[in-house]
């Protein structure tokens, strides 16, 4: 950390002038700040309203999940993955299960695969809804937050029906899922999707195209594609910068085979347009590729994309054969070797790395967090912005501290 006062500030070419010499102020934003999305602490060095440096301090939620993983069988570790990105527990479960399956070379039935797609994409919708709502909250708009939670509640109701839990599901596990979907679940899910689609349009009116929202989000926190890749940003943050990458299409076979035959386009801007499956609002003139608005917009579009995917998956699930899982014994010995698998989670690419020495318990477990990398770019994006932009930028990265601190 730069200890000398104002070095970062004085060197910044973007700030050429200042009005009154006020001494720089160190401000502690968090860990109990309303808009840091959990227990994140940002140490801001500000000159008046201008932030010259924003240093994130993390670790308040550190539980050393990796150490726990070294002492538990893979199936026992599933509940711990729930607590990483607790807004998208299903996706965490899925990532871990797939990594273990890769290590065990375990082929799962067709039906289980489609079930996984339904559940994972539903959770992606839920996660993005929270991301959208809290971003509105960060910018001072309270109502969309509650709308988003209203819709999310319905998804949680569906999940509760499927697995009995509303937050920490442990539903998708090694070998498939713990239960099959209950009767009439699919119908309820379809009814929900039918109802959700028009609501999204309302959110676009409230936030995406709102003049104040555009002013607050467009051309703020602009991150070039090169910077995004350099900082290891993934998911909507990476795609918001115009990088065409989505592991559901580009990932390893172990993951992409779930999506084989599904029709979907990666949500990324090409030639000033996003792939249009529905009527989307136009990109505002002030928005620059890689800014907060684009990151937000990618998430909004991914909700619609996920609705499509769930619909396709429901159709396939109905006709699929086989069981919802293959049985895996709790103390089943893992083959010797190493496996690393990344999956496309709502917040970005979540990777699990397992090293096994032929025992039932892995030798080493590693969780590669997407938010961890996404957050590390904060320092770069917040340099020279206004104080009010800090929540806007951090919010657009859509972080979850449970995943960062693990």
């Amino acid at each position, binding site marked *: 950390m730069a200890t000398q006062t104002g070095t970062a500030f004085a060197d910044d070419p973007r700030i*050429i*002038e200042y009005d009154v010499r006020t001494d720089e102020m160190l401000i502690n934003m968090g860990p109990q700040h309303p808009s840091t999305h959990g227990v994140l602490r940002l140490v801001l060095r500000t000159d008046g309203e201008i932030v010259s440096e924003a240093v994130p301090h993390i670790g308040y939620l550190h539980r050393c999940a990796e150490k726990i993983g070294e002492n538990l069988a893979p199936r026992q570790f599933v509940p711990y993955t729930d607590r990483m990105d607790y807004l998208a527990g299903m996706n965490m479960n899925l990532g871990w299960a797939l990594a273990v399956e890769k290590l065990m070379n375990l082929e799962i039935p067709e039906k289980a695969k489609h079930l996984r797609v339904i559940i994972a994409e539903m959770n992606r919708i839920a996660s993005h809804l929270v991301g959208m709502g809290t971003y509105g909250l960060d910018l001072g708009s309270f109502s969309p937050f509650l709308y988003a939670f209203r819709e999310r509640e319905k998804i949680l109701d569906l999940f509760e029906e499927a697995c009995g839990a509303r937050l920490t599901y442990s539903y998708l596990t090694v070998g498939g899922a713990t239960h099959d979907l209950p009767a009439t679940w699919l119908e309820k899910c379809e009814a929900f999707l039918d109802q959700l689609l028009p609501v999204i349009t309302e959110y676009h009116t409230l936030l995406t195209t709102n003049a104040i929202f555009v002013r607050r989000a467009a051309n703020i926190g602009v991150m070039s594609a090169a910077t995004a890749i350099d900082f290891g940003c993934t998911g909507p943050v990476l795609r918001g910068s115009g990088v065409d990458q989505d592991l559901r299409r580009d990932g390893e076979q172990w993951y992409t085979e779930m999506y084989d035959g599904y029709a979907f386009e990666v949500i990324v801007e090409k030639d000033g347009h996003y792939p249009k499956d529905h009527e989307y609002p136009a990109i505002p003139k002030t928005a620059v590729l890689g800014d907060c608005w684009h990151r937000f917009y990618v998430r909004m579009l991914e909700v619609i994309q996920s609705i499509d995917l769930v619909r396709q998956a429901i159709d396939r699930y109905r006709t699929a054969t086989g069981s919802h899982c293959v049985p895996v014994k709790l103390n089943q010995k893992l083959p010797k070797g190493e496996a690393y698998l990344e999956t496309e989670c709502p917040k970005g690419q979540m990777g699990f790395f397992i090293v096994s020495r032929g025992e039932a318990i892995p030798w080493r477990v590693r969780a590669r967090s997407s938010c961890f990398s996404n957050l590390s770019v904060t320092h770069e994006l917040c340099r020279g912005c206004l104080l009010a932009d800090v929540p806007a930028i951090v919010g657009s990265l859509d972080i979850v501290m449970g995943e960062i601190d693990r």
Partner: protein
Amino acid sequence: MDAINWHTFFFLLFSLVACAFAIAVVLSSNIVRMAFYLILSLAATSGLFFLAGADFVGAMQLMIYVGGTLVLLIFGVMLTNQGPYTMLKSRGDSWLLGVVAGVGLLALLTYTALGVRDWMGPTEEQLAETQLAFAQPSATATPIGNALLGIRVDKLNGGNEPDAQQQVLQGGMSGYLLPFEIVSVHLLVVLIGAAHLARTKKRSDTRST
């Protein structure tokens, strides 16, 4: 018990507040508290203006002085408010000088103020008339506005004959039109000048020190 003259009562109230906080400004050494005391003192003074029937000036005092100038002042206090400067203790010799000069001045002014019998207030005969004058709402805004535009309504008291009015108007009575214009230009100049003064040089010039 005598009837309370409410004008006197409120005069006493406002003047005590104004004087007490003016003294507090002098005695305090914390710059922010000084500003706060000054606000109260000036607000009470505006109350005195209202009391004396100068409603427009009173409201103006509140708006421009208290609401504008003092906010500006507090802004300055906050901008320059570094630890050591919040509490700058005055020196003994300047205290001595200030108190001696102040007491002398006060004595002089008091003597002068109380020296004229006519200034001590209305006579017994004028009492009822005075009460009446203060009882009715004073119309100050329009006459002042007209005066600033060059029409001295109050000078027309003399007579209602058209001739007399015309004479007064043609007799070069311009009211305060010229000073008003000068003040406007002056304010503009000050606006630009202050902006230029407070505007700083390029960062590299000052930061390099």
